[in-house]
C-alpha cells in the first residue's frame, strides 16, 4: 500500500464511524473535504451517496450514485456502500448489474460470487440466481451452491412471471441437479426437506418412499416437524391412508403422542372402508383403542375423548350409528366443561348435529346453569351458555328473547364478580366472557330493533368489565367497533391505542380504526391524528422491504431451505397487503382535504396508485380475533359491527383506485412514456398472465357488480359521479395536455434547478418557439356537463335532508365527507382549466365557465351541510344530550353500575360526537377555501 493510500484509509475511517452512528451530516462534511483532495476517488463518492440518501437527499445522491455505477466498481468497500445506497433507492436491478460486472471481472472471488448471487436473490431474479449458483458450484465445488441452484430453479418455477408451460421443465431441471449431489440429501434435514418437496411436486413417489423409508429418513421425520409434515402429505397423495393410520396408532399408544393430527390419521384410516361390515368392525376397534386411551389420560388430556366424538360423528354420517354423538358430547362436557376451550372443541359437533333433535343436549346444558361458587364452576356455566346460544334456531332469536338473555348473562356476571376479586390485576377475570356474551346479545338486539340504545348498554357493560379486568383486549375490540358505529371516534382510538398494537400487528389489526377512516378525519382542520396513524401503521411495510430480504439471504447462508419459500411468501403477503393499500387510499383521501392539489401531488399519487392497482393483493386482516358468540344461524359479530354494514375488502379498494387513478390520470401531464423515463427504481414484476390483459385505461373505466356491491349507496353515487365527470372532461384534458417532449423538458429544467445537474439519460428534443405546440386537430367542442354531474350535489342535498332526521351520526358524517370528496374530485379534474392561457389557447372558455358554475353550486351545498353539522354537533354539547344517552341504556343493567360511571361514558360519547361533527363541519369550509 502506498503511503498516500494508507493516509487516505486513515482519513476515511471517521466517515464510516459517522455513518455507523447515524451522523450523516458530519459524514457528508468529511466526504466533501476529502473529495477536494481526491476528486476522483470512487469510494468517497459512494460513501457520500450513502450519507446523502440517509439524509433523505435523494436527488443529490442519485447524481453521485450514477457516477459511481458508471465507473463499474470492483472495490469491496465501494460495492458494499453502493449496495446500501441502491437498496435505499429500491434499485435492485442496478445492484444486480453492478455486482454482475464486478464478478465478471474477478470470477474466482468467492465472496463476490455470493454477493452477486444475493443481489439476484433480493431482486427475485431466480433464473439468473440459478445460473450464478450453478457456475459457483463448478468453480468452488461447494455442495451448498448446488442446492442453491436447485432451490432457485424451484423458486423460478413458482414465480408469477414464469409461464405455466415452463414450470414442469424447471422442476425437472432441479431434480436432475439434486441427483448429481455427491452426498445424499439426508445429511441435513433442510436439504432432505428440499429434496422431498421436489419429489412431491413431480409426483415421484417411489423415489420419495425410498428416502422416507430409510433409517435416516425415518429418524429425520421423527425429530423434524417440517419434514414430517411433508411425509404426511406425500403419503396422503399416494393414498396410503391405512399405513398412516397404523403409524399414528403406534405413536399414540406407545409414544404417548397426543398430536391431533395422529388421531385424525387413525380416524381417516378407520373410515377408509367401503364394506359396511368391515367398516363397523374397524370403527369398533378404533373406539376400543380410544376408549382405553381416554381412560388412561383421564383429565390430563382431552384428545382421546374428542377423537371418540369425531369417530361417532363420522359413523353417524356414514349411517352406521343412529344418532349424533350427543351422549359423548355430554361426557366431554362433564369432564372438560371447566376448560375455556370446551366451547370451541364442541362447536363443530353442535353445528353438524343442528337440525337433529337437540332437546336432550339443550336440557343437559340448561341443567348446568347453577350459580357457580368456584372459578372452574363458573367456566362451566359460561361454556353451557355459549353452547346454548350457539345452537339457537332462528325463531328463538327475537328482540325480547335476546334482551332476556342479556339480563341473564349480566346478572350472572355481577353475581359472580367476587370470584375473581383476589386475582392479581394483571390477570383476566373469569367472568369476562359473560360480558362479551351480553355484548353479543345486545348487538343482536340492535340489529333486530335498529335501536342504538342497546349499543349504549353494551358499551356500559364492556367498559365496566374493563375496570375489573384491565387487560381484557377482547372487550376493547368490540368497544372500538361500537364507538365507531355510534359516531364517537375518540374513545375508539383510545381503546385501539391501549391494545398496544405493534409491528406486524399493524397489518392485521389496523383495520380496526383505519377502515373508512376518512369518515372521521379532521385533517381539514389541521388535526392529522388519523393521517399520522396511517403513516405509522404502514411503517411495517418499510421494515418488511428493508429487513425480510436480509433474512432470506441468511436462510440461504444457513441452508434453511424449508424456510426460504416461507419467507418469500411472507414478504410478498406484506408487500402486497390489502390493508397496506386500503390505508394508502384512506391516507390520500385525507391528504386532499388539507393539501392543495398541484402537479407534484397529482403525479406522485398517480404513480403510486397505478403500482397498487396491478398488485395481486393478500388479505391479512384478522377478523377471527373478535369474540363471536352469536348463534350459528346468525351473522358473525364481525359482520354485524362493520361500519355502514359494508366490508372494506378487495372490491372496495379496487373501486376507489379506479376512481382516483382515472381522475389523477386526466389531471396529470405524465403519460406512460414520460413516466417510464422519469421513474427511478424498480417496477413491480408483471404476472405471466398480465400480457393478455386489457390496458390500464380500459380496466379502470368499468366497475364490476362485485365492486359496486361492497360500496355504500353513498359511495356508489360517488362512483357514478366520478365516472361521468371524467367521461365528460376526458377529451378536453387529452387535447390540452402538453406533449411528452414539453413535459420532459420541464422536468429536466426543474431537476437542474434543484441539483445543479442535468436529468440523466434523457434526451430532451428541441422545442420550437415559445414552448407551445401546434395542434393538427381542432379542439373538441365544449358541451355541458351531463345530468349526473350537474345534479350530483342536488342529490346530496336531498339525501342529507333525510339522514339529518335519523339519529345516526355516522350516516350524517358519511354523506358529508363524501360530498366533500366529490368536490375535491371536481377541483382535481378542473385544475388544468384554471390557467387562463390553457383556456385561451384551446378555446375552452365555455368549459371554464361551466366548471366555475359547478363548483359554485357544490360549494353552496357544502356550506349548508357544514352549518347543519355544526348545529348538530352543538346539540351533543350539553347536559341534556348526556342525559339522553344515559336514559337510553338498559335500566336492568344500569342497576349494577354506578350512575356516575354511566354518566361519564355518556359524556365521553357526546363529547366525541360533538367534536367530530363540529370539526368535520368547520373543516368543510376550510376545504372550500383551500381549493378555491
Amino acid at each position, binding site marked *: 500500500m502506498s503511503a498516500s493510500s494508507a493516509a487516505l484509509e486513515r482519513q476515511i475511517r471517521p466517515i464510516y464511524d459517522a455513518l455507523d452512528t447515524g451522523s450523516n451530516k458530519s459524514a457528508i462534511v468529511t466526504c466533501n473535504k476529502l473529495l477536494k483532495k481526491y476528486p476522483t476517488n470512487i469510494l468517497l463518492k459512494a460513501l457520500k451517496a450513502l450519507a446523502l440518501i440517509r439524509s433523505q437527499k435523494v436527488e443529490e445522491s442519485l447524481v453521485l450514485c450514477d457516477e459511481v455505477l458508471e465507473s463499474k466498481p470492483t472495490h469491496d468497500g465501494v460495492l458494499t456502500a453502493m449496495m446500501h445506497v441502491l437498496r435505499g433507492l429500491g434499485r435492485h436491478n442496478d445492484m444486480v448489474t453492478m455486482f454482475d460486472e464486478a464478478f465478471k471481472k474477478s470470477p474466482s472471488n468467492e465472496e463476490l460470487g455470493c454477493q452477486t448471487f444475493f443481489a439476484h436473490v433480493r431482486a427475485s431474479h431466480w433464473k439468473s440466481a440459478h445460473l450464478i449458483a450453478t457456475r459457483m458450484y463448478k468453480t468452488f465445488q461447494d455442495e451448498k451452491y448446488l442446492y442453491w441452484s436447485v432451490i432457485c430453479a424451484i423458486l423460478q418455477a413458482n414465480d408469477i412471471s414464469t409461464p405455466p408451460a415452463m414450470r414442469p421443465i424447471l422442476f425437472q431441471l432441479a431434480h436432475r441437479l439434486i441427483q448429481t449431489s455427491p452426498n445424499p440429501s439426508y445429511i441435513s434435514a433442510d436439504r432432505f426437506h428440499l429434496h422431498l418437496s421436489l419429489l412431491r411436486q413431480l409426483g415421484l413417489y417411489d423415489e420419495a418412499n425410498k428416502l422416507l423409508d430409510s433409517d435416516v429418513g425415518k429418524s429425520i421425520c421423527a*425429530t423434524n416437524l417440517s419434514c414430517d409434515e411433508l411425509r404426511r402429505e406425500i403419503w396422503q397423495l399416494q393414498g396410503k391412508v391405512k399405513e398412516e393410520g397404523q403409524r399414528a396408532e403406534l405413536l399414540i399408544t406407545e409414544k404417548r403422542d397426543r398430536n391431533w393430527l395422529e388421531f385424525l390419521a387413525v380416524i381417516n384410516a378407520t373410515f377408509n372402508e367401503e364394506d359396511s361390515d368391515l367398516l363397523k368392525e374397524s370403527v369398533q376397534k378404533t373406539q376400543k383403542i380410544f376408549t382405553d386411551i381416554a381412560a388412561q389420560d383421564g383429565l390430563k388430556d382431552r384428545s382421546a375423548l374428542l377423537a371418540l366424538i369425531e369417530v361417532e360423528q363420522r359413523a353417524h354420517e356414514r349411517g352406521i350409528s343412529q344418532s349424533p354423538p350427543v351422549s359423548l358430547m355430554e361426557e366431554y362436557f362433564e369432564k372438560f366443561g371447566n376448560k375455556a376451550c370446551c366451547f370451541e372443541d364442541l362447536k363443530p359437533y353442535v353445528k353438524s348435529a343442528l337440525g337433529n333433535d337437540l332437546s336432550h343436549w339443550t336440557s343437559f346444558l340448561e341443567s348446568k346453569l347453577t350459580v357457580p361458587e368456584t372459578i372452574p364452576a363458573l367456566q362451566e356455566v359460561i361454556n353451557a351458555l355459549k353452547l346454548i346460544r350457539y345452537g339457537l334456531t332462528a325463531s328463538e332469536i327475537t328482540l325480547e328473547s335476546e334482551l332476556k338473555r342479556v339480563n341473564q348473562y349480566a346478572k350472572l356476571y355481577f353475581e359472580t364478580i367476587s370470584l375473581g376479586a383476589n386475582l392479581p390485576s394483571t390477570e383476566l377475570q373469569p367472568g369476562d366472557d359473560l360480558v362479551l356474551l351480553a355484548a353479543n346479545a345486545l348487538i343482536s338486539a340492535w340489529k333486530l330493533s335498529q335501536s342504538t340504545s342497546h349499543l349504549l348498554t353494551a358499551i356500559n357493560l364492556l367498559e365496566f368489565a374493563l375496570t375489573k379486568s384491565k387487560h381484557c383486549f377482547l372487550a376493547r375490540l368490540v368497544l372500538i367497533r361500537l364507538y365507531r358505529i355510534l359516531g364517537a371516534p375518540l374513545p375508539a382510538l383510545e381503546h385501539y391505542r391501549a391494545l398496544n398494537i405493534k409491528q406486524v400487528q399493524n397489518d392485521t389489526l389496523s383495520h380496526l380504526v383505519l377502515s373508512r377512516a376518512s369518515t372521521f378525519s379532521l385533517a381539514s382542520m389541521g388535526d392529522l391524528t388519523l393521517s399520522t396513524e396511517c403513516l405509522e401503521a404502514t411503517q411495517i411495510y418499510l421494515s418488511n422491504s428493508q429487513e425480510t430480504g436480509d433474512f432470506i439471504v441468511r436462510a440461504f447462508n444457513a441452508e434453511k431451505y424449508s*424456510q426460504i419459500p416461507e419467507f418469500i411468501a*411472507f414478504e410478498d403477503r406484506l408487500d402486497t397487503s390489502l390493508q397496506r393499500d386500503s390505508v394508502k387510499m384512506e391516507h390520500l383521501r385525507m391528504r386532499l382535504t388539507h393539501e392543495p392539489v398541484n402537479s407534484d401531488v397529482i403525479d406522485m399519487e398517480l404513480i403510486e396508485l397505478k403500482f397498487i392497482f396491478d398488485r395481486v393483493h393478500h388479505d391479512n386482516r384478522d377478523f377471527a380475533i373478535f369474540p363471536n358468540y352469536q348463534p350459528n344461524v346468525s351473522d358473525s359479530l364481525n359482520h354485524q359491527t362493520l361500519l355502514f354494514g359494508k366490508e372494506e375488502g378487495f372490491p372496495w379498494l379496487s373501486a376507489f383506485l379506479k376512481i382516483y387513478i382515472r381522475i389523477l390520470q386526466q389531471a396529470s401531464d405524465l403519460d406512460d412514456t414520460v413516466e417510464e423515463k422519469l421513474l427511478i427504481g424498480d417496477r413491480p414484476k408483471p404476472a405471466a398472465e398480465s400480457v393478455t390483459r386489457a390496458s390500464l385505461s380500459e380496466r379502470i373505466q368499468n366497475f364490476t357488480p362485485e365492486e359496486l356491491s361492497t360500496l355504500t349507496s353513498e359511495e356508489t353515487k360517488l362512483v357514478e359521479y366520478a365516472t361521468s365527470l371524467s367521461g365528460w372532461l376526458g377529451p378536453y384534458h387529452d387535447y390540452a395536455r402538453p406533449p411528452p417532449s414539453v413535459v420532459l423538458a420541464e422536468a429536466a429544467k426543474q431537476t437542474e434547478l434543484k441539483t445543479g445537474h442535468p436529468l440523466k439519460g434523457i434526451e430532451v428534443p428541441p422545442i420550437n418557439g415559445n414552448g407551445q405546440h401546434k395542434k393538427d386537430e381542432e379542439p373538441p367542442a365544449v358541451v355541458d356537463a351531463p345530468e349526473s354531474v350537474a345534479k350530483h350535489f342536488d342529490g346530496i342535498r336531498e339525501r342529507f335532508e333525510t339522514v339529518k332526521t335519523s339519529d345516526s351520526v355516522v350516516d350524517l358524517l358519511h354523506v358529508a365527507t363524501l360530498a366533500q370528496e366529490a368536490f375535491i374530485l371536481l377541483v382535481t379534474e378542473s385544475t388544468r382549466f384554471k390557467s387562463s392561457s390553457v383556456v385561451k389557447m384551446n378555446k375552452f372558455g365555455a368549459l371554464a365557465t361551466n366548471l366555475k358554475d359547478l363548483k359554485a353550486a357544490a360549494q353552496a351545498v357544502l356550506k349548508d351541510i357544514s352549518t347543519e353539522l355544526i348545529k348538530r354537533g352543538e346539540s351533543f354539547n350539553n347536559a341534556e344530550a348526556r342525559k339522553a344517552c344515559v336514559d337510553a341504556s338498559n335500566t336492568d343493567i344500569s342497576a349494577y353500575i354506578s350512575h356516575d360511571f354511566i354518566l361519564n361514558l355518556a359524556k365521553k360519547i357526546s363529547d366525541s360526537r360533538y367534536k367530530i361533527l363540529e370539526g368535520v363541519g368547520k373543516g368543510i369550509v376550510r376545504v372550500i377555501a383551500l381549493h378555491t
Partner: protein
Amino acid sequence: MSILRPFKASDMFKFNNINLDIWTETYGIGFYLSYLSRWPDLCCLQEAPNGRLMGYVLGKAEGSGTEWHGHVTALTVAPEYRRLSLARKMMALLELVSEEIYKGFFVDLYVRCANSVAIGMYEGMGYSVYRRVREYYGSLGIGKGGRDEEDAFDMRKPLARDPHRRSIRPNGRDIIVSAHDVS
C-alpha cells in the same frame, strides 16, 4: 384437540390472540425471522383444528464446549388454552430436538422471578434454578413485586449428554450475577 406443527413466518399474521395478552411481547419481524432462519426445528406451535393458534415456543442452540445447549427464548399459550398441557408438549419437543439434533448438554431459559406459575411449571418439568440474574428485565422498573419483577432466574434441565448433571447445581437461587455477565 391441538395440532403440533412448525412455526412458519406467515403465522405472524395469526398470532394476535396469543400476543395481545400482556405477558407476551410482539417483536419486530426480524426477531422471528432470525430464529426461523437458523433454528426452525426449535420453533413450533400448537394450533386448533379450526386454524386458531393456541401457543408457540421459539428456541435456539448456543454456547460452546460443555455449555452448548438449547435455549427457550419465548414460550406462551393464549389465555383460553391454558392448563391443557400445551406448554408441556412444546417443551418436550424442544428438549427432544436439543438433545437429538443439536446434541446439547442441557436446555435453559430465563423467567421473571415473580412469575411463580411458570417457575412452578418448569420445576415440575425437571428444571432447576442455576442462578439469579439481576435486572434482566430492567425496563420494567421495580414494581409491586420488588426485585422479583426485574430479576430473572436462569433455569436449566440437563439432557442425556450430561449424565452427571454437571450443568446444574443445588444452590442456584443464591448465585447472583448481573445482567452483563449473561449473554
